């Protein structure tokens, strides 16, 4: 993405229109002081006609200065009309720039959102979610503001300067020099100030962030704080942070106070210079009263935009950085084009659930350590329940991620019903593999919506069938709003076990021929665990169960024990149980775990 092809670039007609309207507004705005001058000098005080042909032309058009003097409503009408043109043009400038910016911002947000869903899992795992969120929200906003407001400010300042200087020069060249002398100073001072003050702004923001972090940690750990009666120390910590925030923010405010003070001084001195020098010229007869008034009014009209421009240019850097950060996200390759993954895959074969791993190797991108999977081979028939056992980090989850094509193998292949899965379209494949993640993620919506996520057309009966199988129906019914209960911050907080069961129901409702449960029953009590497993059996899907519970694993058809990315044991659990621990490395691993867990159970009983 570059600026031209970005949504903002594509809105150029609106921004061009807004710029045109801004210039028109500036021109019409200058008509008012000039009309006032003509009325004062020429009409009311009988002095020389002003040096602007359009003014004298207008007066001649209606019948000369005498007619105008008798009909003062005429110049009044002209002033109001000029203001109306100014106002109308400003309105359209504001409207078009807002439309352009908001339309572009919307498109940019949509593009970002879609892209975040299209990039690989690896992208998400290596990015910090807070940073990503900031790019999608505040960075977009920085650019939006720049186009909606700040660009117009620059346009206005330039247009005003471009119109004001010729007008002033026509009236009195030497006074013009006086009138312009401090403008560059005002501009430069503002620019410098807002560049320098960034660190103070950042410090204040950071102090605020730290304060929030302390507060959040305190609230999350509140029970622990209470349990150890640590309130005084926590109070001290919070007070220190609160104090720091106040101090740092006050430093910023003091800087701002200095800026506004100096800036006010520049403005007032500039106006004073025009007034005093102008008075001298007027007394000498070189300048009319009306012309002096024009100078004063123009000066006021100029000072503000010039200062604003300094501020905008100081902010330009921020907009540039924001744009680059967003482009970085949008330029990340989507899953189907990611060089670290196999190609898109186009086939949509019928999938029943026969799965073969053929010497599958895998290393995580950017990882320098040993490979995550070192030649995994096994094969299971349709409807098999496969147990997977292994220590944390042994490669269990990785294996299952490959099966869903969240990653693709770096060596070997995985076949489903005889098809190499890298030839199958990712979305098609995932529709047939229901994957319950280790840490289930529920969306901030109702429980019903969460369950029917993957099948929005699911009927109530299907939802309850799934929740009954996942042993969570009764729990949901016990909530005041039942299935309509909202999940998350604004609603009910589900326990770990409840979350897991809702996620299981969500997977069951897909009716997929392949199911993966990545330690999805860990927070569920043993009784419910057994209940859910027997419900799963009835479905006849090829099921993978990752678990640490020996009793759970013992009920599977086929058990795979992996260690450091290698299968060390595989077979029906009953067979594995008969192997003696302590033979070859890995042999009897399951038997040992079984003994350990049952040993805990029986040690004290005996």
């Amino acid at each position, binding site marked *: 993405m570059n600026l031209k092809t970005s949504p903002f670039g594509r809105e150029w007609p609106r921004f061009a229109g807004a710029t045109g309207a801004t210039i028109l507004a500036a021109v019409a705005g200058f008509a008012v002081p000039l009309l*006032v001058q003509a009325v004062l000098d020429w009409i009311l005080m009988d002095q020389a006609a002003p040096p602007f042909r359009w003014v004298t032309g207008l007066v001649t058009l209606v019948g000369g200065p005498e007619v105008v003097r008798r009909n003062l*409503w005429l110049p*009044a009408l002209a*002033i*109001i009309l000029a203001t*109306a043109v*100014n106002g109308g043009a*400003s309105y359209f400038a504001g*409207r078009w720039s*807002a439309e352009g910016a908001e339309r572009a911002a919307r498109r940019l*947000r949509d593009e*970002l*959102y*879609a892209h*975040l*869903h299209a990039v690989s*899992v690896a992208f998400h795992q290596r990015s910090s979610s807070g940073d*990503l*969120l900031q790019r999608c*929200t505040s960075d977009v906003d920085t650019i939006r503001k720049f186009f909606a407001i700040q660009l117009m400010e620059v346009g206005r300042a330039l247009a005003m300067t471009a119109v004001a200087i010729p007008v002033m020069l026509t009236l009195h060249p030497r006074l013009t020099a006086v009138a312009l002398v401090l403008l560059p100073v005002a501009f430069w001072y503002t620019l410098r100030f807002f560049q320098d003050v960034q660190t103070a702004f950042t410090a204040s923001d950071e102090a605020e962030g730290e304060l*929030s*972090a302390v*507060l959040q940690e305190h*609230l999350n*750990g*509140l*029970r622990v704080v209470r*349990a*150890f009666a640590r*309130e*005084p120390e926590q*109070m001290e910590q919070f007070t220190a942070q609160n104090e720091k*925030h106040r101090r740092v923010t006050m430093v910023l405010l*003091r800087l701002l*106070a200095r800026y*506004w*003070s100096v800036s*006010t*001084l520049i403005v*007032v001195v500039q106006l*004073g210079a025009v*007034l005093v020098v102008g008075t*001298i010229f*007027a*007394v000498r007869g070189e300048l009319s009263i009306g012309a002096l008034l024009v100078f004063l009014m123009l000066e006021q009209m100029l000072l503000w935009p010039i200062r604003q421009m300094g501020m905008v240019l100081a902010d330009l850097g921020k907009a540039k950085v924001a744009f680059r950060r967003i482009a970085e996200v949008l330029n990340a390759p989507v899953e189907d084009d990611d060089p670290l993954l196999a190609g898109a895959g186009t086939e949509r074969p019928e999938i029943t659930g026969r799965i073969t791993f053929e010497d599958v190797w895998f290393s995580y991108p950017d990882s320098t350590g040993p490979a995550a999977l070192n030649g995994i081979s096994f094969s299971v028939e349709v409807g098999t329940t496969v147990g997977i056992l292994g*220590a944390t980090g042994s490669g269990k989850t990785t294996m299952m991620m490959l099966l869903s094509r*969240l990653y693709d193998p770096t060596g070997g292949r995985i076949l489903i019903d005889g098809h190499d899965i890298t030839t199958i379209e990712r979305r098609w494949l995932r529709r047939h593999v229901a994957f319950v993640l280790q840490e289930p993620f529920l*969306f901030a919506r109702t429980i019903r919506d969460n369950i029917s996520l*993957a099948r929005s057309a699911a009927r109530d009966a299907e939802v309850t069938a799934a929740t009954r199988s996942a042993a969570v129906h009764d729990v949901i019914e016990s909530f005041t709003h039942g299935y309509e209960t909202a999940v998350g911050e604004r609603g009910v907080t589900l326990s770990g076990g409840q979350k897991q069961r809702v996620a299981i129901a969500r997977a069951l409702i897909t009716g997929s021929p392949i199911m993966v449960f990545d330690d999805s029953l860990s*927070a569920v*009590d*043993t*009784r419910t665990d*057994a209940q859910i497993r027997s419900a799963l059996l009835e479905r006849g899907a090829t099921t993978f169960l990752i678990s*640490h519970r020996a*009793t759970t694993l013992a009920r599977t058809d086929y058990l795979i024990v992996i260690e450091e990315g290698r299968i060390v044991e595989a077979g029906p659990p009953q067979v594995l149980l008969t192997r003696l621990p302590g033979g070859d490395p890995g042999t009897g691993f399951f038997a040992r775990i079984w003994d*350990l867990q049952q040993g*805990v*159970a029986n040690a*004290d009983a005996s």
Partner: protein
Amino acid sequence: MPTLRDQQFTQRFDYCIWIRLLKRAREFRGTVIILAIIMLVVGATDALFPLLNGIAVDRYIQTGSLDGLTHLIIAYAVLAAAQAFLVWLLIVYAGRMETGLMYLFRQEGFTHLQHLSIGYFDRTPVGWLMSRLTSDIQRLGETVAWGLVDIIWGMAMMLAVAVAMVILNPGLALLVLTVVPPLALASYYFQKRILGAHRSVRRLNSEISASFSEGIAGAVTSKTLVREAENLQEFTDLTGRMRTAAIRAAVFSALYMPVVLLLGSVGTTIALMAGGARLESGAVTVGVIVAFIGYTVQFFEPVREVARVLTELQSAQSAAERIAGLLETEPEIVDSPEVVERFGSVLEPRREEWPRAQGEVVFDHVSFHYHDGQPVLHDFNLTVAPGESVALVGETGSGKSTIVNLIGRFYEPVEGRVLIDGADLRGCSQSWIHSQLGYVLQTPQLFRGTVRDNIAFARSDATEAEVIAAARMVDAYEMIMALSAGYDHELGEGGSGISTGQKQLISFARAVLADPRIFILDEATSSIDTETELRIQHAIRSMMEGRTSFIIAHRLSTVRHVNRILVLEQGQVIESGTHQELAAAGGRYSELHRESMR
């Protein structure tokens, strides 16, 4: 849930809330007075500048003499210097007030949270409390401090301009001032609209942020569920609404300026026409007209500011209501004044006065419910001797957690008494009770800081040797030494950066260091591999040595070696005894036991 009211916009301005809140900020009375004086002077000074223009015209240009021009220069210079100084002063004072108000309300809020009961936190989401103490208080500070500045300035300037006009020429002044009422009305109308539109933009904006955040956190889930297209559809609807609302807000703002400009130009033409008509008769001088034109240009700004502040105050009212609501929430559990006198308060405990408990726990005819009509415990009786270990077994909702909550006096019984060493908990200091309890949670909660800090969280005066002894006691020493910096290993927010099992062991060491007489364990059921789990089991057993202990058991593996197992169902003890007794009895426990072996 009384506190969960969402962003409501109260239409009517309610003085009471503001007064109630600002009463807490009495210390700023002096600052307010100084600010008011500054702003009055600033407003009046602003009104003087057009007057100087008029004087320049009449005194010098019209007379054609530069005599006394130095007076004008001096007057101008003095005004300029005064204005610059006053602007500096006002920002410093307003800033002091803004940051001071935020500081004050955050301190008060945080202090108040320390006194609220656990029940309050069980009902109130963390995010809700966060918003009160961060954004709402920020809003309050900004609105009050800068609103005060702007409104006093606006009023002062309007008054000064009106007075200056009347002094210059009463007749002309009356004519020109007829523009003010429509200007005020239009300003109020538009400011209200603009604010309303901005509010919906803000709301949509936070929805968009939430969607992004969810999209990022749930990216893998969306992929596995093949939800990308539907998610995007929903998101596009949202951004579409945002676009419409944002353009609407911008259009209101774009419309307001022309209206103000137009009304201002009407004022200018009135000054010009009416002034011009009176010029010949000599009732008005050119200088007066010049000054009046200056005023008509200047007038709309204070009107706009006053209108803006009034509407902003109205919309900040909901923030004020929520802050007042939080600060005025009464704690459900309060120590009596006598107890506070003797043992100190939550924030100023007198630890030296605290006796050491023996560890006897008694439930004496205790009844309890969280919500009316849904009893959790009814006439519950239990006596646990010092040093005895008790396991609570039962389904979710059977009352296990409640019993533990009552021992910690996180809640109080509706009827009956809970006693430690024969003393009714109602008459004990909460901090003392908590200090006698070792509490290990299902999900270990650690804090940002080193491993050592986290263990010493239990007792800030603990020596290095004590910390290490505690770690050794729970078999965490090797694990800690294996971390890159050992005891100095820095943990992230909430203890992030190490595994759940490691966190658990550190939280055990922390509990051991506190050396409590009563030990409560809400047993973990998280995903931990067998080796780690064995270690944890071992640690738990060494912690229970010689202490009265309560275990909320989710798996039965932990409970076999306790002195007594209580099987609970709907708040009643249905079985009680040792593992062997119950397993052999053929009741509910043996059924559960069999299931766990299946």
